[in-house]
């Protein structure tokens, strides 16, 4: 098996979800290569060796500076056809999804998306995909090569194994139509601390907080733990917290190592966005709240008392 992993980067760093997929590819075995596309990104390539890439291809061109999909499709189409990779893996992001679907169309290749696992079974690659609101998992395969796969972000943890990668440059001829789109403006949502997609720790607040100003309790705990703040649909709807922090069916799907749910009842609409978190801790005064059925640790009580004490304890431990 020869596998290529699309390594996405932002502000001079390879993104964790991409490195996670790379580690998984290395674990599955075969020849594993990474590809880094951008402008002034050659230094990044070498770093991928530590996560299991034997070889990293780099296309360094001004056309690849902006995060636009079509120039990347040009680059990947050339690389995959020339090198004959039989699998191309992406960690899902807005850009990666766009690139993967473009590549699928360009190569006439099959794309399976939203995968939460990859396994080798009787010599073929099988993806696991949640269906029907994550209530069942289906096995998906590919009927031809190359096999394209988009892996749900945060599914695999990067594992540093300390190897070294051979870095190889390649040139790309860009299609005229690929350069038709230009980036006019990029805006970044202002936030402090890690974003909820990459945070290892998330402290989330729900309507049980009682009032918007009580989000302060959640923010303080998140800050003490070095984590990010998330919110439920109900509080986002009420305008207590921005939509970018909404976790759930119609918000983001996250899987941090630790998820602390404060005043969250655990309705299924929220659960599907965070159920794959490592350890789930619930603080809620209603002992019948559904969240107590799927959390790892539950505290029945008033979060106005518990959360500040918890924050205090965390701070003491840290200092």
């Amino acid at each position: 098996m020869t596998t290529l992993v699309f390594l996405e980067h932002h502000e001079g760093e390879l993104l964790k979800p991409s490195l996670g997929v790379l580690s998984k590819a290395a674990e599955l075995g075969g020849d594993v290569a990474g590809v880094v596309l951008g402008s002034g990104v050659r230094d990044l390539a070498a770093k991928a060796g530590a996560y299991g890439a034997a070889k990293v291809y780099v296309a360094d061109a001004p056309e690849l500076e902006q995060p636009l999909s079509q120039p990347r499709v040009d680059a990947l189409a050339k690389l995959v056809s020339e090198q004959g990779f039989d699998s191309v893996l992406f960690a899902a992001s807005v850009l990666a999804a766009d690139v993967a679907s473009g590549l699928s169309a360009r190569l006439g290749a099959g794309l399976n998306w939203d995968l939460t696992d990859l396994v080798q079974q009787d010599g073929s690659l099988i993806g696991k995909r949640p269906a029907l609101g994550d209530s069942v998992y289906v096995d998906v395969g590919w009927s031809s090569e190359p096999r394209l796969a988009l892996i749900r972000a945060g599914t695999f943890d990067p594992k540093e194994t300390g190897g070294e990668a051979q870095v190889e440059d390649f040139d790309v001829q860009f299609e005229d139509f690929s350069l038709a789109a230009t980036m006019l403006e990029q805006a970044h949502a202002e936030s402090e601390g890690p974003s909820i997609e990459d945070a290892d720790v998330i402290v989330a607040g729900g309507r049980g907080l009682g009032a918007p100003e009580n989000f302060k309790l959640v923010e303080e705990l998140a800050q003490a733990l070095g984590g990010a703040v998330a919110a439920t649909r109900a509080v986002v709807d009420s305008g207590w917290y921005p939509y970018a922090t909404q976790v759930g069916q119609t918000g983001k799907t996250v899987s941090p190592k630790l998820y602390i749910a404060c005043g969250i009842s655990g309705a299924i609409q929220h659960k599907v966005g965070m159920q794959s978190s490592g350890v789930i801790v619930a603080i809620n005064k209603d002992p019948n709240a559904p969240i107590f059925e799927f959390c790892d640790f539950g505290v029945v009580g008033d979060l106005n008392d518990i959360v500040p004490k918890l924050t205090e304890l965390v701070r003491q431990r840290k200092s």
Partner: protein
Amino acid sequence: MTRPAEYPPPFDSREFVAAPSDSPDERIDVGVLIVGAGPAGLACAIRLGQLMEDDPSLAERLGEVPVAVLEKGKGVGSHLVSGAVVNPRGFRRLFRGRDVRIEDIPSFGPVQHESVYFLNSSAATRVPTPPTMKNDGNFLASLSQLSRWLAEQAEAGGAMILPETSAERLLVTGARTVGVRTGDKGRGRSGEPMPNFEPGVDVTAKVTVLAEGTQGHLTGVALDHFGLRGDNPQVWALGVKEVWKVAKPLDRVIHTLGWPLRGGRKYREFGGSFIYPMGDDMVTIGLVVGLDYRDAEVSVHDLLQELKTHRFVRKILDGGERIGWAAKTIPEGGFVALPRRLHAPGLLLTGDAAGFVNVPALKGIHYAVETGRLAAEAAVEALRPGRTPWTPGALASYDRSVRDTYVWNDLKRVRNMRQAFANGLVLGGAMASGAIATFGKFPPGNRPTEPDAEVELIRPKRSAKYPAPDGKLTFDKLSSVYLSGNKTRDDAPNHIRVRTDVPEELGLLWERMCPAQVYEVKEDGGETTVEVTASNCVQCGAITAKGGRLTPPEGGSGPEYTLT
């Protein structure tokens, strides 16, 4: 005592009637435009396809897109809910002499056995099946599945089906209906265009057929605008159902009366449950309650949960798993509430939207198919060379042909039965029996209906008795909404017109009535307000019956039913 009608919604149907505003080049021009891909609309499209096949010059006269069907759901069937035990009569007539057999229709086979039970809280007593409820020769189906199949037939006949497209305004010039304007997409919470904003378009047509189903938005607008409302107001029931995967097959169709509904006259709780097999490994269970009930704390969703805890019902579901959920209203006014006319220049009304439902028989799909078919024929009749569907009376052949069918006779016979049950189950049952025995001659005349929203509310503290959800047999509303497949974006504009400054009792009525947890009563310094979470809405239509008004949400939003 509060009546919901005292707090009318901020809604004026004139807002939804307009002349075409796109320039002629920008309009989409079609021959016959059908609004709604349910059994009525699709039967109409199929019949038009047959007529075009028989007479190729018809297709030419209809133009480049001879038949188009607009569907607001994500796909065909996404918003369709029924029991369903289907009377095949409508399909037999639709496919007569064609290459389709009744056995080709996706179904779970014919009804083999049936039983009716009267429940009290601990026992189930078998009672004789009322003659109107007999199901010999009828078949079991999922309406959502069945309609996807009908859509394939319609497309094969040349119809173009446009899903994710809501019909928002009726396009009218003078007194002629000339099409509809579709809804905008990509607006934010307060109506502002977002980066993915797509304005609606004028879809113009020679004939517009409204087949919107229960609580049809444009049907309501057309009834007002053209003065078509009948002598009596339409009334509705709310049905909530679940689909279960079960361990052992159910061998019969079951209906229940009585518990958990209360028989007393002061409650006016008319309804019952249905439990139908869907093949060997699935069962559907639903509860239907007339929306003329009085107790502000009635929740059909929670009454269905309560019903499932009955020993008799629990036995059927034992070892099973809930895999589907849906809610929808059913027009129950019947014959006396039908529109005065079923047509206006350029416009035809069909199926549930027009109120063609036989309540004592618990059926309406065959009427939808029948009226859809007849609408197609009337449209074609009015499009013969030298004629135009836009003159007054040009489409009147539709009304005549509907009156000549079994649809009209069936409904006339049972016209007073639903109203009788305003007197409670015992007296109502006796009066209904009289009507059956005399083929509708007793009671004589037409019994009036009363709008659901005019019923005075009472508050005997019922909701304390609803069972707590256990996540296995009984569920909360949000889990149900999730199972409906609804993933409407949270920043969509609110499509529900409702007053939010109402007495607590009325807010509570909405909170409990809504099966999808859209309304929530908030107390703030003695003031009651109603908070609306529109993205939960599964578009069942109950709010329109009880003092609010649904308007079409963004196309493609709402539930995504597949098994219902």
